[in-house]
């Protein structure tokens, strides 16, 4: 077995330099600007959808948020495997940061999804929509991941437990997907005219749409990066606390 922790610890990378850095995060600011630019374009300069009207505008948040969520959760799953393999605490911290950001994006995706469903399908929640149902269960699993992490003091154990949960959840997703699919296929055929994933788009809409993907991926990475750095600072702070106890 390998030792619980390996790799560069934050102390070795000179904590003073990290702490002394200015609060202003240029990358995060860039992400915010990108999102603002995108929405000005989406709301003011992109024509509304012929069929769905203004409700279609929610796509520019909704689909992009899901993309961000799945990116973040994918990173968590990947980092969990890396952690179980190499026991590198950086993988653990990145996994945690991505999970938290993923939960935020999932929440945005679910909220906008229900609003859209209400407007177009006439119901706030539809169990037979696979994406909505699957995302809801994903939300529960990510929430459990974060609660689990909050309940463990020892960093090594916290890393291993949450990584085990993430890996098992990766195995679980296909099963939920399959059973929700069978469940919904029996009840309702998918609405063909209003497939939310395949709207008929004008070139302007498509540009805005792809732009929203780019803006949200940048935002997702900026948030994960900021959260990761917070994790580093927190670990330095708790180490300082322990050093203080020892003296």
């Amino acid at each position: 077995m390998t030792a619980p922790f390996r790799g560069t610890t934050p102390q070795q990378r000179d904590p003073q330099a990290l702490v002394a850095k200015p609060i202003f995060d240029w990358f995060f600011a860039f992400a915010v600007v990108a999102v603002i630019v995108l929405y000005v374009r989406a709301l003011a300069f992109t024509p509304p959808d012929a069929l769905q009207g203004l409700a279609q505008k929610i796509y520019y948040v909704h689909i992009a948020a899901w993309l961000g969520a799945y990116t973040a959760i994918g990173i968590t799953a990947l980092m969990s495997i890396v952690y179980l393999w190499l026991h590198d605490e950086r993988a653990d911290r990145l996994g945690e940061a991505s999970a938290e950001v993923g939960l935020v994006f999932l929440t945005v995706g679910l909220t906008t999804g229900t609003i859209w469903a209400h407007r177009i399908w006439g119901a706030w929640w539809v169990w037979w929509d696979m994406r909505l149902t699957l995302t809801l269960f994903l939300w529960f699993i990510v929430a459990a991941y974060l609660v689990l992490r909050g309940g463990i003091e020892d960093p090594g154990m916290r890393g291993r437990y949450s990584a085990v949960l993430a890996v098992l959840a990766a195995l679980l997703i296909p099963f939920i997907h399959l059973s929700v699919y069978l469940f919904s296929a029996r009840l309702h055929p998918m609405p063909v005219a209003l497939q939310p994933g395949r709207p008929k788009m004008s070139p302007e809409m498509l540009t805005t749409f792809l732009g929203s993907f780019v803006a949200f991926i940048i935002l997702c990475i900026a948030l994960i990066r900021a959260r990761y750095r917070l994790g580093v600072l927190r670990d330095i702070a708790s180490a300082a606390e322990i050093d203080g106890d020892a003296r």
Partner: protein
Amino acid sequence: MNELRAPGTLSAAWLLARKDLAIEFRTRTAFFSALVFAILALCIFYFAWDQSIVAPSELAPGVLWVVLTFSALLGLQRSFGLEEHDRGIDALLVSPVSRESIYLGKAIGNLLFLSAIQAVTIPALALFYNLPVGRPLLVVTGIVLLAMIGIVAVGTLFSAMAVNTRMAELLLPMLSLPFFVPILMSAAQIATRTLAGRPMSESAPYLKILIAFDVVFVVACTLAFPFTLEE
């Protein structure tokens, strides 16, 4: 000194399971509380629906799965709690017994515990909800067994994790329930069809999911268990 022959994986697992059941038999608290809970829940659910709209026999499968899930959580809760109290788990870990057999032993113990509860709950369900006794009920019992294997496989692992955290009582359901979703969805579908007298071929895809889940998670959780131990 002497070279002893330590028990193999399966005999060690059975040794552990028997020890857990002996403790259970001696104290009986968890068993009785889970059993009383299960039957009480059966009765309460009966009144939660309007019987003039939904026939009790149509309600029965749903009630069965809800009761199964929550009585399983009650039993799983104490599985590793038992080891934690005076660190009995340490004695197991320093012994020549393998980590996999510790997990399997715990899982077998939990499966038998849960089976004993279901052995009373299913007849009680048939009694209270006027289910016809016969082949469909037997098929449902088989499905319950398949569902329990999956529930116990995942639940035993999470029980081992939850005891080492603060708020173990909250975490075990929170971790386990999302994993029970595919089991419950498919098991409930099969049970509803079977009790409605539909042919078994209609339930085949659900049965496949159930069996695949059992196989995948028994293997995955056995492999994952060593990671949940202190290192």
